[in-house]
């Protein structure tokens, strides 16, 4: 495809035809703030945060949805652009709670980042402020529609990536609100609580219930890992505070992007659960008794050996698991075929 060359802040850059001004700026390392834009979702250009000055254009144009054109001359931080962005932030803050003090997203909020970046300390605009009730009737996430800036990323994530289309814009004008059908709560809707909407929410409107009440974003260390629940192999970040896993957040995984399912995102409670089995148990006289790994493995080897000796190798079958790593599955295959001596091995994800 043909390339187009344009000038951004005095620097020349070439992008493939159809590429946006935002893409071109990114290529140059020029930062443009965005709220509704997401590279994985359709372009709606609704928040206007990413406006830039294009020479000859009638008004400021949105860089996230405007295709770069040959010879275009773009200024990303002209006085008009700065004023527009400040006004957008002021308008958003006019109907946004000033409770960063205890907000779970304090420190990980685009609205806050941009308010600081552009020195918008608050809003002089006074007007109606939403007083929606906090939605906490499900075990996974908190919905605070007072903090929603109507960027619609959750709506698109739900429809375009998750494919569930549980939430969408409802009502009109100032009363516009993102909600499930009939403006019910998520618990009453067909929501599967994958939490992918939470992963893309730029503010504190959608928050992970456990994570955001137990740690502030700057207190956690993120540890990249692979989900152990199924064979898909999604990547995510374990959020660790004081040596304990307090939550899961999306990363940009090779397999899954930022998408996760309810188990991967919210099913981490077992990690530090007191009931968690942390060592082998052997049944002695009808009771499970704690044992060492040496004892347990020795017992298994002895029993398998005696079955093999008495009934032959093919009397043993092995079922492997998608929750194991490739290496573990390979080793189990080796153990079955080379040590036990049978081809009776299968895997739950064999399709």
């Amino acid at each position, binding site marked *: 495809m043909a390339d187009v060359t344009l000038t951004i802040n005095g620097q020349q850059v070439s992008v493939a035809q159809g590429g946006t001004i935002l893409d071109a700026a990114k290529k140059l390392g020029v930062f443009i703030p965005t709220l509704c834009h997401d590279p994985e979702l359709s372009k709606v250009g609704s928040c206007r945060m990413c406006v830039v000055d294009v020479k000859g254009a009638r008004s400021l144009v949105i860089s996230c949805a405007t295709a770069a054109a040959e010879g275009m001359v773009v200024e990303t931080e002209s006085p008009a652009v700065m004023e527009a962005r400040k006004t957008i932030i002021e308008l958003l*803050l006019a109907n946004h709670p*000033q*409770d*960063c*003090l*205890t907000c779970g997203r*304090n*420190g990980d909020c685009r609205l*806050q980042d941009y*308010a*600081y970046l552009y*020195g*918008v*300390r*608050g809003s002089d605009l006074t007007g109606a402020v939403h007083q929606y009730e906090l939605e906490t009737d499900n075990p996974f996430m908190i919905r605070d529609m007072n903090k929603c800036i109507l960027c619609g990323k959750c709506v698109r994530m739900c429809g375009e990536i998750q494919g569930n289309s549980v939430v969408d814009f409802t009502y009109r004008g100032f009363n516009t609100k993102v909600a499930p059908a009939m403006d019910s709560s998520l618990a009453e809707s067909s929501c599967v609580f994958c939490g992918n909407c939470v992963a893309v929410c730029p503010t504190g409107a959608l928050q992970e219930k456990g994570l955001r009440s137990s740690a*502030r*974003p*700057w207190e956690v260390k993120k540890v990249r890992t692979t989900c152990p629940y199924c064979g898909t192999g999604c990547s995510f970040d374990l959020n660790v505070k004081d040596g304990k896993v307090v939550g899961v957040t999306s990363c940009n995984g090779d397999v899954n992007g930022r998408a996760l399912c309810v188990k991967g995102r919210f099913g981490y409670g077992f990690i530090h659960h007191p009931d968690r089995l942390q060592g082998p148990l052997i049944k002695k006289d009808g009771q499970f008794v704690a044992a060492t790994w040496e004892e347990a493995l020795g017992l298994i080897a002895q029993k398998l050996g005696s079955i093999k000796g008495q009934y032959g190798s093919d009397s043993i079958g092995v079922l492997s698991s998608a929750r194991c790593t490739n290496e573990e599955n390979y080793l189990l295959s080796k153990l079955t075929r080379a040590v036990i001596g049978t081809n009776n091995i299968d895997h739950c994800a064999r399709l």
Partner: protein
Amino acid sequence: MANVTLTINGIKVTVSMGTTVLDAAAQAGIFIPTFCHDPEIARFGACRICVVEIAGMRNLPASCVTEASQGMVVNTESPAVVEARKTILEMLLANHPQDCLTCEKNGACRLQDYSFRYGVKGPGFEGKRHEYPLDDSNPYIIRDMNKCILCGRCARTCAQVEGRAVIDFTYRGFNTKIAPPMDTTLAESDCVYCGRCLAVCPVGALTYKRMAGKGRSWEIEKKPVICTFCDSGCLFDLNIKDGKVIGVTAGTPGQGRPLCLKGRLGLELLYCDEPTDPLMKRDGEFVKVSWSDALGLDGVLDKIRKIEGK
């Protein structure tokens, strides 16, 4: 020295006589919040956020000034303690701006930390609020007395350096305020901008002007450096954001650690990727000066140039 054994939250702890309940708890790995307490300064016991419940005591004593005694039974998070702490936080927030959104201290503020910890979402009381003008009269320190919680750590650490004691409590009651003599601005006072008060301020009342707007606390990585300008060996922190040193802040103050402006500016020149020009007071006005002038190196440079000429 004799030892005493006490029980804190069911854990037995043995400490030497004279140790505070706060230090004994720290030894047992138990966290107690503090505002006015500073291990480097004399005990003060003003803020009451560190109160604990001790069996047999008439009320909740401040753990930072209560010495551990033999057989003491302490509960650091009993319902009464938690209620007292919540009320203290609510009262502080009743006269504290709710502007974490853009506050430079956001993320490194004890008032915010404890509000989050105890689930205090805002002031529980409506009442008068201070509307002090911002003191940004000097090039180094921004003082926002609306955010001051009157813990007094700044005044006490300032007084610790011989001949300083620039600021102290002024006025009374609700009007109590930390200020230089005659309630002037810092620029009009004898302040030398060493920054030790900034190092101990638990809230956003004192912040570095040269760092304003440059980055948020969670974006900044701190790397300690020791100043080599004199033999005091003061600790400073390099503030690094996106791999760039954006400022130098005073480290832990203490006895024999003046943390002077010269030292901080010298380290700025040495480490900052884009050091800004220093400003010095000449005839009562701050004027831009050269780095060699600010650091008092003119004489040295002159001598070097003379020798080079020979």
